[in-house]
Structures are given as structure tokens and as C-alpha cells.
């Protein structure tokens, strides 16, 4: 078996999400290479070479790959991936955007967000908002998989000494152009990597009230999330949405404040180790998954919690 893991990075550093796919690759078993596609991304290749258990790092360094445009990156993955038994990437928005496109170019039915490896061709994955877990077997010659980050521990970022090889092939479809981005800047830990996450929902009432959540999060060193309703209402930006169609998190501690617990929200956080719910409605479904439920008005509970920490 030979497995290609697509690196998640920002052209200067390798993102920890990559390491979850490395662990999934190890569960499949075989030689593991990492493909770094980017522009001016040698530093990423060097970090990838340090990851424990990697045979080879392939770097496709070209201006056309700088923003991970699917039209340019997918043909490269299809080309490089053709000699592997498996092509994997962690299910970030970047990978979800490009890997299915590469799979179609390879005439492969990709499998999304695997949560367990049963064997080299059989995998488990949550479907229907995580209400059931499917076991699926692929008959394609090459398996193209995205990996649910929360289901696999991160492989050690250090300890390896893989060789680095350049991939010369350049694809520039000229069909799309990157115009800009609005990146939310925050000193708080990234949601999907945080050990503690505090999330607010519609019950927060408005965006200003989220300052109560930020203050508690900062005392706990926590990341901050939100329900769809809080994002739709404009309380917080979209990248904070936790759920079936937002980010999937599984921290040691998840605190849901003013969130009712719709299945779409639960799908994104119910694998957290310890769940706390603060809600004034004792019938709220969130309590059915909470280890510790506090029936209270958040406007009194949050200041008290802040003071107690």
C-alpha cells in the first residue's frame, strides 16, 4: 500500500489538521508520502519532512497553486495520486473543495469524512447528521478519502526525516482568480484544535453579549464557537459555526450556552469528552447530551461563572 496525504497549509506553516490524516493513513498501513501544493511553500515541505512516519515529501511549488484554486490543484492531485493506492486529506474547507474534483478526474468515487478505518478498502463514516454510522467498501482501484479530523489523533509533528522531492508539473487553468480574503484574526485557539470550546447560540441575544463568552473563554484558554442561529443573526462570523454543515469539534470540554441542541448542532459537537449546557429551558434537547446541565438564565450564570474562574 502507498498512501498520499495532501498537506493543509498556508504556504508558510503546515496545519495540524494534516496530522490527523497521517494517523488515518497509518491505520490503513503502508508507505506514507505527503504532497505539499502551494507557492513559496518550501518551509511547509521542511515541516512535513519532520512528521513521524513519512517516507517522502513531494512539493509542487508554483505561483498558480498559491491560493489552492481547485481548477489548478485538482489536476495535479489526480496526476500525482495516480501511482498511489490511497489519496487522503483532512476534511477542511480547502480539502473538501479540491479532493472530490480530483477524484472525478481520476474517475473515482471519493468517500467523505471517514471516522474509522476497518480495512484498506472499508471505512466507517457518519451520515444523516451523524444519526447513523455507515460502513462502506470501495471497489475503486484508488481510494480517495477525506478524513474527519476529530476521529483520528494527530500524528507526532516531529521525529521524522523524510526526503523532499520537487514536482515540476504545473497546472494553470486560468478559469478562476483569487480576489481577496477576510480572515478572522483571533488570539484564541483554533476551534477544531482547542482543548476547550465555549459556544453561544441564539439565546445570547446579540453580538455584544458574546463578550461574556470571550471573557470566559480567555480564562480557560478556550476556542469560541456558535450555533447556526447565532451566525445567521450576525452575532458572530461564519467560521465559528459548529455543526453538521459547519465545523466538527471534539474537545475535552464543550460548553453550550443558549443553544437548544438541534440535531444539526449536535452533529458537530457530540463527540466532545465532557459537555456542559447552560440553558433556561429545562426541556432543551441539549440537556440530553450534556454531562452537566445548568438550568439558568445565561445573563446571570455567565457573570457568575466568569467570577468563579
Amino acid at each position: 500500500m502507498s498512501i498520499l496525504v495532501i498537506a493543509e497549509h498556508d504556504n508558510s506553516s503546515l496545519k495540524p489538521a494534516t496530522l490527523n490524516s497521517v494517523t488515518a493513513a497509518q491505520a490503513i498501513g503502508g508507505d506514507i508520502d505527503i504532497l505539499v501544493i502551494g507557492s513559496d511553500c518550501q518551509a511547509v515541505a521542511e515541516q512535513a519532512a519532520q512528521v513521524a512516519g513519512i517516507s517522502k515529501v513531494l512539493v509542487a511549488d508554483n505561483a498558480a497553486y498559491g491560493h489552492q484554486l481547485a481548477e489548478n490543484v485538482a489536476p495535479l492531485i489526480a496526476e500525482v495520486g495516480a501511482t498511489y493506492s490511497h489519496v487522503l486529506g483532512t476534511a477542511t474547507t480547502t480539502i473538501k473543495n479540491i479532493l472530490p474534483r480530483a477524484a472525478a478526474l481520476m474517475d473515482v468515487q471519493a468517500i467523505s469524512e471517514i471516522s474509522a478505518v476497518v480495512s484498506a478498502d472499508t471505512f466507517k463514516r457518519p451520515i444523516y447528521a451523524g444519526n447513523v454510522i455507515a460502513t462502506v467498501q470501495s471497489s475503486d482501484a484508488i481510494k480517495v478519502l477525506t478524513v474527519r479530523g476529530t476521529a483520528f489523533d494527530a500524528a507526532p509533528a516531529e521525529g521524522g526525516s523524510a526526503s523532499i522531492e520537487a514536482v515540476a508539473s504545473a497546472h494553470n487553468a486560468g478559469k478562476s482568480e483569487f480576489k481577496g480574503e477576510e480572515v478572522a484574526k483571533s488570539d484564541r485557539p483554533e476551534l477544531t484544535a482547542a482543548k476547550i470550546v465555549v459556544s453561544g447560540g441564539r439565546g445570547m441575544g446579540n453580538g455584544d453579549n458574546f463578550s461574556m463568552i470571550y471573557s470566559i473563554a480567555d480564562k480557560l484558554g478556550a476556542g469560541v464557537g456558535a450555533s447556526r442561529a447565532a451566525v445567521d443573526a450576525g452575532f458572530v462570523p461564519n467560521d465559528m459555526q459548529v455543526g453538521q454543515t459547519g465545523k466538527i469539534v471534539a474537545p475535552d470540554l464543550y460548553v453550550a450556552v443558549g443553544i437548544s441542541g438541534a440535531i444539526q448542532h449536535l452533529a458537530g459537537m457530540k463527540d466532545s469528552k465532557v459537555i456542559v449546557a447552560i440553558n433556561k429551558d429545562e426541556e432543551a434537547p441539549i440537556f440530553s447530551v450534556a454531562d452537566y446541565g445548568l438550568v439558568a438564565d445565561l445573563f446571570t450564570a455567565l457573570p457568575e461563572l466568569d467570577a468563579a474562574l
Partner: protein
Amino acid sequence: MKVLVAVKRVVDYNVKVRPKSDGSDVDLANVKMSINPFCEIAVEEAVRLAEKGIATEVIAVSVGAKQCQEQLRTALALGADRAILVETDESLEPLAIAKCLKAVCDAESPDLILMGKQAIDGDNNQTGQMLAALLDCSQATFASELSFDDGKATVIREVDGGLQTLELTLPTIVTSDLRLNEPRYASLPNIMKAKRKPLDVKTPDDLGVNITPRVTLLGVELPAERQAGIKVEDVAMLVDKLKNEAKVIS
């Protein structure tokens, strides 16, 4: 500009599905079915483009069983001009669906193809990207804003880090995220009118598409149940439990 919208018939988002007793698949007997919420957003976007005079024709397309006609009628009631059903009773995967949609696109030559980012049954999040590969056209997934200027599309995308703006040459595929728009409800007169709008039926065979599955479903199971928790009296007790029992804060 000709717009094609792909709509999928799925379990209604309020339904909590369960495995069949033999664990072979999910039990969809007597379950409410609806248009996939992200597809509804895609249809709404297409209709708004028509209302602005940007879209000249909106064609709704679905691939699946005869009953998908219900969801196509919904799209027609929301404002699509005509519909195409690629009818089959076989189980379908994103790649096979993308191939059927490609054949329809080859015949219709749309300038814009609107789709949902994800179908809430299989949670695949693949079909749009795959169709873009097969058509060798540009793509913008997870769109929260779409505009047109100078024969190009500009899309704001919801990505992990925030928002990204892309400019795309046409034809292009745009998949909707939740914030692209808020879909309208179909009015009764429009539901009546939709019954008379054209709905063509084809089969994958007619289109020359092989839909043989590549992935076999071996079974489904319930996820691990969470242990029932406790209610705490107050914040002091909560903090005490988190520190001394769960040991998740210090």
C-alpha cells in the same frame, strides 16, 4: 444567461433517521421527504437572478426515483421555468449523479450551474466539485454571495478561516452555503401554476451514463450513546464538578 439548478430529494431535516432492524441501511419507510435545504437555497438564488433580469431561463434538474418529481414541482413553484428528471431506481453516488448532470449540461449548455454544498442525507459534499471536474469548468463551493459583472461571476465563499472572494469565468458551478439567501415559500397560485410547467423525464441510459456503484454499503449502526448526565444546582457546583470530578479545568 441560462441557469441550471440541481435539486436532490432527501429526508426532511427535522427527521431523526434510524437503522433498519437488520442494520442493512437506514429506515426511510413513511419518512417525510423534502427538497435538500441547500438545494432550496440554490433554487432561490436562481429565481432571484431571473427576477433581476440576469437569468433568462432557470432549469431544475434532479436525478433519482420517480418521486423526485415532487421536489422538482417545488422548484417550479418557487420560480424555475422547467424541469428535467433523470429517472432511475438504482442507488446513486455523487460521481454517477455528476455524470448524469454532465450529460444534461452538455445538452443544455447552461452558463451557471447552482447546486447545494451538501446533501443532508449522505453528507457527501462532493457532487458540485465532481461536476466541475467533468465539465472542466470553474467552481466556487460554499458560496455566501454571488454577483455578475463583465461576463464573470464573483463569489464570496465561507471557508474555515473566514471569507474568500473568487472571480470565475463562465460557465461556472456555484454551491450554496446557508447564508447565500433565505428561501421564500411557494405561494398557492404558484404551486398551481407549477403543475403546468414542463417536466421532461430521461433515463441514465438515454444519456449514455453508466451509474454502476463503486462503493458498497455494508451496513449502518447507531453511534455510541452518551451516558445520561446530571443537572447541577448552580454555577458553584458546576465549577466544582468540572474541577474535581471531570478534571477538565484547573
